[in-house]
């Protein structure tokens, strides 16, 4: 039996424990082992029943008794981290929208027009065609210049860039990724932007100024 046929027979018999004429074929291989170094161990492997080819020890009933509970615990931990990250992602998107709305409302010459003013003047352009005002250059520059090491910036990115959608890839289960927990300052959320009275508008303006100052330089 030449080497290629010897190897083919080995592979076929290893793959198929119910191959026809199995015993005779194994005997034929065994008779050729001396011609094909390394074949003896594999033929011996063939001769064993599949479950004895590479027996694995079972960890035992005590191990299995706690296994499910440990899985449940880790799933819950992963769920908590997922919840925090989702909430953070939603909050950061809401904050960005709120900031843009606030700037649009209070920028000179923009914002929703007063009914009395609208009644007294001709509408020159359809409302839907009016683009919103651009963010102030200073704010854009400050956002662009936000350092990657800024823990808020880094954590916001991390919150949106997780392997949640590809659970099969990688090992970094959220509970185990070692990433620092995000700690937000007290009152980091902006005030409610709808139905504001004069005092509320003042507070919102003040908050926007604080955020601008914070992005330009030191954190407030």
């Amino acid at each position, binding site marked *: 039996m030449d080497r290629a046929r010897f*190897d083919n027979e080995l592979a076929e018999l290893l793959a198929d424990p119910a191959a026809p004429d199995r015993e005779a074929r194994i005997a034929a291989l065994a008779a050729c082992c001396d011609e094909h170094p390394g074949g003896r161990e594999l033929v011996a492997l063939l001769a064993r029943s599949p479950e004895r080819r590479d027996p694995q020890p079972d960890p035992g009933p005590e191990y299995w008794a706690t*296994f499910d509970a440990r899985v449940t615990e880790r799933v819950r931990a992963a769920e908590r981290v997922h919840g925090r990250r989702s909430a953070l992602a939603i909050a950061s998107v809401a904050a960005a929208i709120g900031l843009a709305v606030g700037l649009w409302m209070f920028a000179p010459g923009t914002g929703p027009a007063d009914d009395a003013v609208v009644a007294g003047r001709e509408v020159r352009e359809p409302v839907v065609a009016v683009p919103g005002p651009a963010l102030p250059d200073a704010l854009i520059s400050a956002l662009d210049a936000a350092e990657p090491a800024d823990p808020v910036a880094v954590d916001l990115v991390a919150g949106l860039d997780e392997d949640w959608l590809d659970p099969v890839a990688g090992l970094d*289960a959220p509970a185990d990724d070692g990433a620092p927990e995000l700690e937000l300052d007290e009152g980091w959320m902006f005030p409610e932007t709808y139905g504001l009275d004069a005092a509320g508008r003042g507070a919102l303006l003040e908050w926007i100024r604080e955020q601008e100052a914070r992005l330009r330089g030191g954190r407030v």
Partner: protein
Amino acid sequence: MEPVVAKPRGPAPDAELLRRFRSGEAAAFDEIVRTHRRTVYHVARRVLGRHEDADEAAQLTFVKAWRALGRFRGDSSIRTWLVRIALNVSRSMWSARREQVGLEDLQELPDAGEGSEGRLGRRQDRRRIRQAVTRLPPRQREVVLLKVFSEMTYAEVAEVLQLSEGTVKAHLHQAVSNLRRRLAETVD
């Protein structure tokens, strides 16, 4: 002796489990874990060797499965899907360990032994075969672990490895040739 890869024994069919899981029934996931935990553990154990590593890989596999189960379309069985995740997790852990401790240390995998009827020669043979399997290219190694040692069908191995059955067969034939050559090199 524990079955090499435990076949599901009388659980609810996959589609039924998926339906219950998607409707928010936590017990459905518990049933999946109970049914497939041994399969997942033993696949990881075959790749990683040590119980501690296999335990960690099995736990991680189910955490990942829980996250992804809602989007699992059921194109394959839950069992082969879980084996695929377990293999990926184990592969990553294997790579990380190889970087840490080196290939030589990894070859000293624990031998399950055969109890009182174990014979030294047979154990040595098994150890040499296991070391030779460890040195195979990754795909060939995985085909041997799943097809020869874990008794999966060609179709199941193809599903787990996302290959065609023909490719799996080709990998197995190459693996056997390589194994024989490597064993020949290490004849005492």
